[in-house]
């Protein structure tokens, strides 16, 4: 029942490696928790003639109160207690490593996608034309949304065969993906059939 086909195995392998990589990144960033990533923030509202002030310090949770953080204390003696009662101190933590890793991953994926888009729209037709000549280019532009039922069946049946050449397989997969995207683009953007 649970036959592991090669494709399924490859998928599983890529997925698990991605998960491992991400976990590794996150644990590394979590371990390197610098002292800069914790703080105690005290907000003190205006009191008598003193303006409102915000105090930040890198102290731990047990020291996070008005007496430790508010330095220099703007009031003297018996006013300190009244002043401190109005202040609110909060302990906050963040992970700058996570933020850095996330932004860098995001920007790199965005950059890769943009490069791939530029390649697909601008460079690939030029390259193909130079390598294969005009005839091949025309041939790859056909098969626009076949309505014939038997062509569809042909597609389904032939997809299940194994191909010998790896490069052929990649090329074929890319062609199939581009055809799918073209179909989707026609339904969404041109004919406005789905997702108006």
């Amino acid at each position, binding site marked *: 029942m649970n036959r592991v086909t090669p494709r399924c195995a490859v998928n599983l392998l890529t997925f698990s490696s991605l998960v491992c990589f991400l976990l590794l990144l996150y644990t590394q960033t979590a371990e390197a928790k610098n002292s800069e990533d914790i703080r105690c923030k005290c907000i003190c*509202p205006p009191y008598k003639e003193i303006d409102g002030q915000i105090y930040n310090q890198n102290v731990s949770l047990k020291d996070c109160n008005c007496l430790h953080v508010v330095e220099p204390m703007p009031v003297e003696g018996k006013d300190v207690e009244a002043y401190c009662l109005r202040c609110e101190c909060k302990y906050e933590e963040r992970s700058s490593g996570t933020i850095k890793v996330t932004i860098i991953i995001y920007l790199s994926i965005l950059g890769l996608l943009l490069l791939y888009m530029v390649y697909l729209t601008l460079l690939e037709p030029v390259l193909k034309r130079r390598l294969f000549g005009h005839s091949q280019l025309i041939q790859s532009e056909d098969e626009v949304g076949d309505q014939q039922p038997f062509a*569809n069946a042909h597609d389904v*049946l032939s997809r299940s065969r194994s191909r010998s050449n790896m490069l052929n397989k990649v090329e074929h997969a890319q062609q199939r993906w581009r055809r799918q995207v073209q179909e989707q683009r026609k339904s969404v953007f041109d004919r406005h059939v789905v997702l108006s």
Partner: protein
Amino acid sequence: MMDNGGFCNDNYHSLSSDDELVDISDVTVDFSEDVPPLIRDYSVGRSKADWRLHNSPKLMDLMDDTVPGIGTYEDFNTIDWVREKSKDRDRHREITNKSKQSTLALLFSVSDAFSGWLLMLLIGLMSGALAGGIDIAAHWMTDLKEGVCLNGFWFNHEDCCWTSNETTFQERDKCPQWKSWAELMVGVNEGASAYVVSYFMYVCWALLFAFLAVTLVRAFAPYACGSGIPEIKTILSGFIIRGYLGKWTLIIKTITLVLAVSSGLSLGKEGPLVHVACCCANILCHFFTKYRRNEAKRREVLSAASAVGVSVAFGAPIGGVLFSLEEVSYYFPLKTLWRSFFAALVAAFTLRSINPFGNSRLVLFYVEFHTPWHFLELIPFIFLGIFGGFWGAFFIRANIAWCRLRKNSCLGHYPVLEVLLVTLITALLSFPNEYTRMSGSQLISELFNDCGLLDSSKICDYSGSRTGSVNDTVSNGLADRPAGPGLYTAMLLLALALVFKMFITVATFGMKVPSGLFIPSMAVGAIAGRLLGVGMEQLAIYHHDWNVFRRWCSPGADCITPGLYAMVGAAACLGGVTRMTVSLVVIMFELTGGLEYIVPLMAAAMTSKWVADALGREGIYEAHIRLNGYPFLEAKEEFRHKTLATDVMRPRPSGPPLSVLSQSGMTVEEVERLILDTTYSGFPVVISHQSQRLVGFVLRRDLVISLENARRHQEGVVSVSAVLFTECDPPASLNAVPAVKLHSILDLSPFTVTDHTPMEIVVDIFRKLGLRQCLVTQNGRLLGIITKKDVLKHMAQMANRDPDSILFN
């Protein structure tokens, strides 16, 4: 299959006496072709387990799966729920039977049962991680329009100034490490030139982000645009849209969602997060055979995934499950309830551990006030509900009209230009007003905030707060104070922002970038609520001697909380647009963390739903489904007309006759010609064209694939070969050309109704069983067929709508 060969030779003469009652006056009935009724062999020789293994009735023999593609569906078609559910039951039965044989099989059956929970865990982890990444990236990119952090370009404004000591009480975000674009380019931070440069950079960044978003969507995954919830609703009701929940759609939706939100457009990310979570679920389903092969089981997982989506968007697991139950799912078995909750909790926990907002909160506008409310305040709350209802009805009508315009006119031919234009207008008009310049979630968070001594924003500028006379203001915060000048300007700006947001959201929702509408609707409601709240507050202060206020507003006490009005307004507007009921209230009180406000929220939500329902029947998602013509059979409407099945079935008296296949009289060529000439997605199989007695139903896709396969692989099949749907060969053709045996793809138990069945019952059957087609018989003979599309067209006709708007099958 040869076990049952014995049945074919015996029992030909077991005619029941009922046959004589059939009117066969002008019809020649050939009983020799009948497949005899199933007679179970209870003989002693076989053990009971053996019998069950070999003779258990299966709906269709699809378990060998020798021909790939049988049992799958065409794109833009509806699945057959009954077939999928029975396939799953057969599979489960087989595993249970085999588990009694060996330990390995027992372990396998345990792991099969456990795979559902493992899948939920993985979905929760993946969605939570993605949502955390989206939040962090969106926060950073939104601030990128203002300036950049010199400490590390990846910090947003708040994180850049996290450790700095230069922040003041008035300007919480000032620090030397954060440089605005004006400072970097012109050198100064104040003045006219700095303002112009900031304006220009803001508009440029907004246009750049929007352009990147729409070109990526167009180039890689056109299905990634829009909210996604109408299409997911349709998918969950049984429709197939291939590629809608694929990996490219997931990648593009994640990336472009961040870009779209950061570009300052009036949209939110809750709807797209539901789509992202469903994509994760669909991708993870491919690792589990149980869910990969079965469309019905997969939809159970997708229901759970939509709960996960809302849970990570709002930090509300229970609200997410209720949202999935109420809005998105079509069938929601109880098993899914517990699993959805588990997945939503795992996702919320993952999101919390990633900590995108730096304060262990899940959502930017989590508020925690507990100030009490007075029951007389229900009147303004109901008024907010009425406003929400009107806003909902207006928004739905305007948005559908705009989308219809986009669909049918030349506006739809320039999607990139449209996005750029809308972004330009939004950026130009929103920069001058500080309340539209900030992102939607930040605006809502500020409006929900209950003003206290520690706040210094304009909206909390009550006069007397700065003089600070010790005597009367020591412990009561900002209660009972007249508004200061800052508050008046804030109210004016907020009123302008309200008008702006009301109109720009109409044009933004439905564009070709990922867009949600929870945040914009909540923003509109929050602004309206806050305005009303501040108005009530000032009324109470200046007229505290009125009878109404004297009872509950003692001087110096906190009597009106504008933050609560903002919350109630947000709930009312969201309810008016989406028509959510329970899920809305639960999400809102999970956001606030307090049970005190359930009654105001419920009052506003109910009023808004009633007013909006009075003005227009459908919520925004149903309206979009109807606009696109998806075959969605609404489960909430009642069918009240007195038509019968004969009025709806096809063939119509004026149309072509019913296309049927006979069980043994047709050749391959004839069948192929029938398939080519028609576009029906299935054909009934009858005993013969004269008798029209029903045998079963066969789907077009299965027929096409099987015939193609037979032509290629089976020896000796030519165009004149016979096509047999019977289980055993008729004796005549033993020495002729080999026949194509298609018994395995025939559905032997199609649903039938008689011609006098009322349409109410037929619609009920379609809804409850998830049928795709239903055959109509008269006196035992096949008369016609009713498909789901016919039912939908009939309902549209009865409601005086255009029946041609149903596009899909």
